[in-house]
C-alpha cells in the first residue's frame, strides 16, 4: 500500500506540467550557478596570478630588501567560494604587508564591481536558499488540500487505507520525486567543473557533497512544511497564502530583522571609532619619538656606514617600542570590539535560526569556508605571514622592517652597482583553509536544526492529517 502511494505520488508529480516548468527553471538555475561559478573562479584565478606576478615584478631591480614597499598578499580564489560565496565577495582580498603593525584587508570584490553588491551573485546558496525553497512550496502546497478539492482524497479513503500510511507515502513520494531530479541537476552541474578545467581536491568534493546534502535537508524542511500546511487547511489558496507568508518571513525578513535587532541590542564600536583612537595614539607616539630623534647623537660620527647602522638601530628600537605600544592598544581595542561583535553575532544568529534559511546559509557557508569567520581567518593568516615576512627581512637586513628609514645605495664601496635582490626569495603566502573536520563540526549544529525542523514539520503534517476532514 505504501509503495502504491509513493509510486503514484512520484508519477503524479513528474507527469505534471507544473513540475516540468518549475523543475526546468530550477535545473537551469542550478546548472547556471555551476557554470557561472566555474567561469568566475577561472577569472579570479587569472586575476590572482596576475596580481601576484605584478607584486613581485615591482621589486625587480631593487638592490636592498629595505626598499621593499607595498608588498601585498592576496586571498587565493577557491572554486567552492564561487559556488557558495558567503562573505567572500564582501571582505578585502588584498593585504599590504609592512612587516609590522596591524594588517588591513582591502579591495573586496564588491568594491571592485559594485553592481554585484546590488544584485549579488547567482550561486548555489541563492538557488537553494531562495529558489528551491520556493520550488518546494509551489510543489507541496496542494499536496493534501489539492487532493481534497479534486475529490481524489475522498475516493482514496473510500478504500481501506490508513491515514498514517497515506501521509507517509505522500511525504516520501514527493520528496523522492522532487529531490532526485534536483540531485541529478546538481550532479550534472558538478560535472561541469572538471569539464571547464576547474579541479577540486578530494576534500573540496566532500565539502560540495555535504553542501548538497544540507541543501536537500533544507529543501525537505519546506516540503514537509508545505505538506503540513496543506494538511491543516481546507483550500489550496489558503495553504499557498500561508506558505508564501512563511517563506517571505523565513527567506527574506527574519535573517535581516535578526541582524537589525541584534544591532540595536548590542552596541559594537565601529571600525572608524577604533581607527580614530589608534590614529590619535599613533600620532602621540610619533610626536614623542620625533623628540627622541631630534636628540639622537651618533657615538661614532667618523664612519658613515657605522653611523647609518647606529641610526637604523636607534630608529628600529624606537619603531619596535612604538609597535609594541600600538600592538597593545590595538589588541585591547580589537578584543573589546571582537567580544562585542561576537555577542551581537550570537544574538543575531540565535534569533535568525528561527528561520531554516539561516541554518542552511550558515551550514553551507561553513562547509564552503565562506562563513563570517572567513575575514578573521584571512586576517589571522595575513598576520602569520607578516611575522614570517618580518623574520625574513630581519634575516636579510639584520633589522626589523618598518623602521621608516630607507637608505638607497646607488653603489657599493667599490663604486660598483650592487646586485639586485631576487623577489622570488620572499616567503610565499599560503592561505590555509579551515580543515574539513573542523568545518563539518561547525556545520553540524545547523544541520541538526534542519533535521529538527524536518522532524517537527513531518510530525505536524502527520498529526494534522490524522484529524483531517477528507470529505
Amino acid at each position, binding site marked *: *500500500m505504501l509503495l*502504491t*502511494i509513493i509510486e*503514484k505520488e512520484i*508519477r*503524479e508529480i513528474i*507527469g*505534471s*506540467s507544473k513540475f516540468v516548468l518549475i523543475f526546468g527553471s530550477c535545473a537551469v538555475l542550478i546548472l547556471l550557478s555551476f557554470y557561472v561559478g566555474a567561469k568566475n573562479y577561472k577569472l579570479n584565478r587569472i586575476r590572482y596570478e596576475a596580481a601576484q606576478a605584478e607584486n613581485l615584478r615591482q621589486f625587480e631591480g631593487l638592490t636592498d630588501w629595505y626598499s621593499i614597499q607595498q608588498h601585498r598578499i592576496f586571498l587565493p580564489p577557491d572554486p567552492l567560494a564561487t559556488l557558495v560565496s558567503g562573505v567572500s565577495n564582501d571582505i578585502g582580498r588584498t593585504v599590504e604587508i609592512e612587516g609590522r603593525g596591524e594588517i588591513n584587508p582591502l579591495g573586496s570584490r564588491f568594491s571592485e564591481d559594485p553592481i554585484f553588491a546590488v544584485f549579488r551573485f547567482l550561486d548555489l546558496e541563492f538557488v537553494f536558499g531562495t529558489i528551491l525553497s520556493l520550488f518546494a512550496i509551489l510543489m507541496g502546497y496542494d499536496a493534501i488540500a489539492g487532493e481534497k478539492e*479534486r*475529490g*481524489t482524497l*475522498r*475516493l*482514496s*479513503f*473510500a*478504500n*481501506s*487505507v*490508513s491515514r498514517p500510511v497515506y501521509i507517509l507515502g505522500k511525504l516520501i513520494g514527493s520528496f523522492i520525486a522532487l529531490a532526485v531530479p534536483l540531485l541529478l541537476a546538481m550532479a550534472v552541474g558538478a560535472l561541469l567543473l572538471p569539464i571547464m578545467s576547474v579541479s577540486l581536491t578530494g576534500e573540496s568534493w566532500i565539502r560540495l557533497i555535504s553542501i548538497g546534502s544540507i541543501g536537500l535537508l533544507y529543501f525537505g524542511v519546506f516540503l514537509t512544511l508545505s505538506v503540513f500546511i496543506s494538511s491543516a487547511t481546507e483550500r489550496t489558496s489558503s495553504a499557498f497564502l500561508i506558505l508564501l507568508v512563511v517563506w517571505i518571513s523565513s527567506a527574506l525578513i527574519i535573517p535581516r530583522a535578526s541582524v537589525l535587532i541584534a544591532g540595536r541590542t548590542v552596541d559594537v564600536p565601529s571600525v572608524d571609532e577604533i581607527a580614530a583612537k589608534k590614529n590619535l595614539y599613533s600620532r602621540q607616539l610619533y610626536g614623542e619619538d620625533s623628540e627622541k630623534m631630534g636628540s639622537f647623537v651618533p657615538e661614532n660620527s667618523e664612519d658613515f656606514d657605522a653611523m647609518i647602522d647606529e641610526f637604523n638601530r636607534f630608529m628600529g628600537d624606537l619603531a619596535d617600542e612604538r609597535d609594541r605600544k600600538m600592538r597593545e592598544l590595538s589588541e585591547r581595542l580589537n578584543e573589546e570590539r571582537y567580544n562585542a561583535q561576537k555577542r551581537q553575532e550570537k544574538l543575531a544568529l540565535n534569533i535568525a535560526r528561527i528561520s531554516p534559511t539561516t541554518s542552511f546559509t550558515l551550514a553551507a557557508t561553513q562547509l564552503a569556508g565562506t562563513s563570517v569567520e572567513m575575514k578573521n581567518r584571512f586576517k589571522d593568516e595575513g598576520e602569520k605571514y607578516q611575522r614570517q615576512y618580518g623574520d625574513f627581512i630581519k634575516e636579510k637586513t639584520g633589522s626589523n622592517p618598518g623602521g621608516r628609514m630607507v637608505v638607497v645605495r646607488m653603489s657599493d664601496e667599490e663604486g660598483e652597482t650592487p646586485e639586485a635582490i631576487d623577489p622570488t626569495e620572499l616567503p610565499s603566502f599560503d592561505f590555509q583553509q579551515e580543515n574539513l573536520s573542523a568545518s563539518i563540526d561547525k556545520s553540524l549544529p545547523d544541520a541538526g536544526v534542519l533535521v529538527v525542523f524536518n522532524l517537527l514539520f513531518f510530525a505536524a503534517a502527520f498529526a494534522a492529517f490524522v484529524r483531517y*476532514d*477528507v*470529505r
Partner: protein
Amino acid sequence: MTNIDDITRPLLEAANLTKVYEDGVLALDHVSFSVRRGQIFAMLGGNGAGKTTTVNLFLNFIEPSEGSALVDGIASHEEPLIVKQKLAFVSENVMLYPNFTAIQNLDYFARLGGKTDYSKDDYRDVLLRVGLEEEAHNKKLKGFSKGMRQKCGIAIAILKDAPGILLDEPTSGLDPKAGYEFLRLLDTLRDENRAILMSTHDIFRAKEIADTIAFMKTGKIVMQKNSYELEGQNLESLYMEYMSGTATGTAA
C-alpha cells in the same frame, strides 16, 4: 458462491443513524433502513436532506453521534478499514488524477483497493463495459468530459469488486445518453448481487432503477416505499407532497 443467508441478510444497514455536527446542526435524525444484496436503495431529497451525510457515515468520513452504519453487520466507525474493503464508492463529481490516463487511474485505485492482479486488458474490458471508447483509455483525464470521468469512477468501483456500492449523486450532470447507460450498468451490478445505496435528485431515474425509494427531508426519512408499492403512483407529485409537508403518510 452466494448463499441464502447472504441474500436475506442486509449488507448495508443504517440503525438509528444520527449525526449532529460540531456547530449543532442536526444532519441526520435516527435514520434506519437496510439494503440487501441484489437491491438498489435510492435516497431522494433536496440539498441538506442528509443523503450525503448518510454516505459519509457508511464510509466513516465522519463518525455518527448516535446509532451505526453497518456493513455486513460491522459498524463502520468501529472497524473502518474492514468495512471499506466491502464498499465501493462513486462520488457526484469524479475528478481523479488529471495527469494520469484512464488506465493509470484505474490501476492506482484498484491497487489502493487491494486488487493487485489486474492486467491492462482487465482495465480495458471494464472501461469498455462502462462505455468509455477505447481511444480514450490511454488519454490523460484532464481532457475528459464529466461523463467520461464519471464512467472512469464507475469502472473503479466495479474493479474493486466489493459487495456494496455507494453512489453519491452519480447521474448529476450526465447527458441523457450517459444517464441511460449508467442505469443499464446499475442493472447489471444488481444482477451481480451487489447492494447499492444511491443518493440522487433524479426522481425519474430513481423510479426506473431503484427497488426501494426513501424521501429524506431535514435529516429524516419521511417516506420509504418499495417499487411494488410505488407502482402506478406519480412519484414526482408524491415527492412534492412530502417535501411541502402536505403528505399524510409516514415513513415505512
